């Protein structure tokens, strides 16, 4: 906390609202883009260009009946979507949108981040791993075979890819010499880390797609095998919260990629927050593009990629970075 409790609370509320708005319209962008990739229009009935579609979806979700399966563990069943959602928004809270800015017309300065700790990166990883408990608890508490299998798949996937993910990120940490997002972003003033850390970036990107359960790694909800995975038994707003948490996780990982490899909020002409949103948007565009292009991998392929390809490559990148930092 850099500016007192009340300002921090206000900033958190603003960030959470912006995040939810961004998320809502990214779902519209996703549907529109996937429509174009498949040579159709995408949503275009509600409002101009279908722009009111997210609001219509929200209205529909809110009206649905909240069902709880008879055999479910009621408390955990209800808690699971909240856990997933809380962790998803919480992890995003540490993302920097710039350093210090002056509010126009006054001489008030404001920090464009909520908190910058010496272990920010670890905190994001920690909250991210807590978020997976939402999926696991949801899968277990629904008392359904498909939901349980989906939850278990989520955990297996998390454990396999977190190792490679962390190793890839350590390359950046060594080069920047810090775990704080502000320091990492500032260290890229002259050269974005995507160039010296290209190998690490590749591993980071593949692992990030797997960690956010996006296609082609969305085995937790492979409809041909486990119906809808961990949220099979969820409907209405509870399902929407799971879906939102998943998309917000993708946004957080995109923001992480922007900070670690694309210089974070720095850029010419435009202010920091705009650059940050543009870089997040670029990552999300590639994610959507991949979703529209690639078929889903098999589970054994997923494990093979994680342990036999990404892990050795990430280790190699780590060794090269360490040698380069010490001797160059």
């Amino acid at each position: 906390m850099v500016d007192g409790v009340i300002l921090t609370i206000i900033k958190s509320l603003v960030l959470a609202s912006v995040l939810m708005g961004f998320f809502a319209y990214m779902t519209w962008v996703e549907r529109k883009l996937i429509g174009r990739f498949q040579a159709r229009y995408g949503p275009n009935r509600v409002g101009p260009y279908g722009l009111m579609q997210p609001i219509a979806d929200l209205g529909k979700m809110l009206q649905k009946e909240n069902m709880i399966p008879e055999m479910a563990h009621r408390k955990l069943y209800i808690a699971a979507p909240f856990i997933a959602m809380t962790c998803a928004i919480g992890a995003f809270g540490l993302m920097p949108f710039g350093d210090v800015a002056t509010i126009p017309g006054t001489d008030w300065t404001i920090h464009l981040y909520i908190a910058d700790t010496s272990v920010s990166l670890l905190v994001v990883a920690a909250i991210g791993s807590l978020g997976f408990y939402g999926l696991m608890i949801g899968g277990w508490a629904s008392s359904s075979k498909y939901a349980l299998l989906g939850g278990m798949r989520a955990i297996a996937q998390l454990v396999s890819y977190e190792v490679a993910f962390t190793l890839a990120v350590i390359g950046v940490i060594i080069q920047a010499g810090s775990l704080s997002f502000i320091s990492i972003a500032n260290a890229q003033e002259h050269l974005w880390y995507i160039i010296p850390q290209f190998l690490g970036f590749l591993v980071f990107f593949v692992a990030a797609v797997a960690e956010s359960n996006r296609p082609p790694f969305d085995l937790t909800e492979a409809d041909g095998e486990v119906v809808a995975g961990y949220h099979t038994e969820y409907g209405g707003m509870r399902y929407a919260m799971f879906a939102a948490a998943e998309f917000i996780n993708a946004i957080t990982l995109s923001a992480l990629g922007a900070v670690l490899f694309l210089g974070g909020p720095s850029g010419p002409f435009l202010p920091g927050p705009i650059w940050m949103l543009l870089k997040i948007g670029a990552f999300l565009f590639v994610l959507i593009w991949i979703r529209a292009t690639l078929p889903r991998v098999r589970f054994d392929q997923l494990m093979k990629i994680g342990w036999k390809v990404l892990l050795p490559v990430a280790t190699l990148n780590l060794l090269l970075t360490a040698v380069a930092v010490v001797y160059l």
Partner: protein
Amino acid sequence: MDIVVFFIASVCAIASAIAVVAQKNPFVSALALLGNLASLAALMLLLEAQFVAAAQIIVYAGAVMVMFLFVIAYVGPRGEIGPGVRKPWLVALSVFAALLIAVEIVVVVMGASLGSVASVDANYGSPAAIGEALVTDYLLAFEVVSVILFMAAVAGVVFGTGGRPVRLSNDQVLAKEGESAVERRREASRAALEAARDSTTGESAR
């Protein structure tokens, strides 16, 4: 502010620790243990140990408890489990162990001068300080631990795959048991293939 956080975290830690043993559902018990570990991480934050707090969540919540829940969800009982057999000597032993720990805590608390807060510099507990301590003062311990962990990983692989029967190639069988054994193997695989074919045609006919 510190005191408020301290009390909330302490109450959560104690309540979740009680819940671990009081809950009848093993899945919920494991979740309570997770809550306990998270509360401890909050307490560590108050002690200026940011790195340890984050590592606590990543290691225990992100890896260890995930495995616990994985096993409980897959092979554990779904519902509540009843009380086990209560043996008098077990009850006596557990009470004795609890008393021992209580005495130990009292001795430590009385012996330590907890009245004053130790002052540490801003760098204390930062990742840089911990990293430096690990590769200078505690290098030997650090390396020994990494060797032990590596051995544990290798042992895990050996235990995980060691019990599986190895399928010998035809040449190896020939060298070991002679021509007739190979012939028997071929017969067996041919029969299995035919059985599989019969069952699939049966399926499609139906």
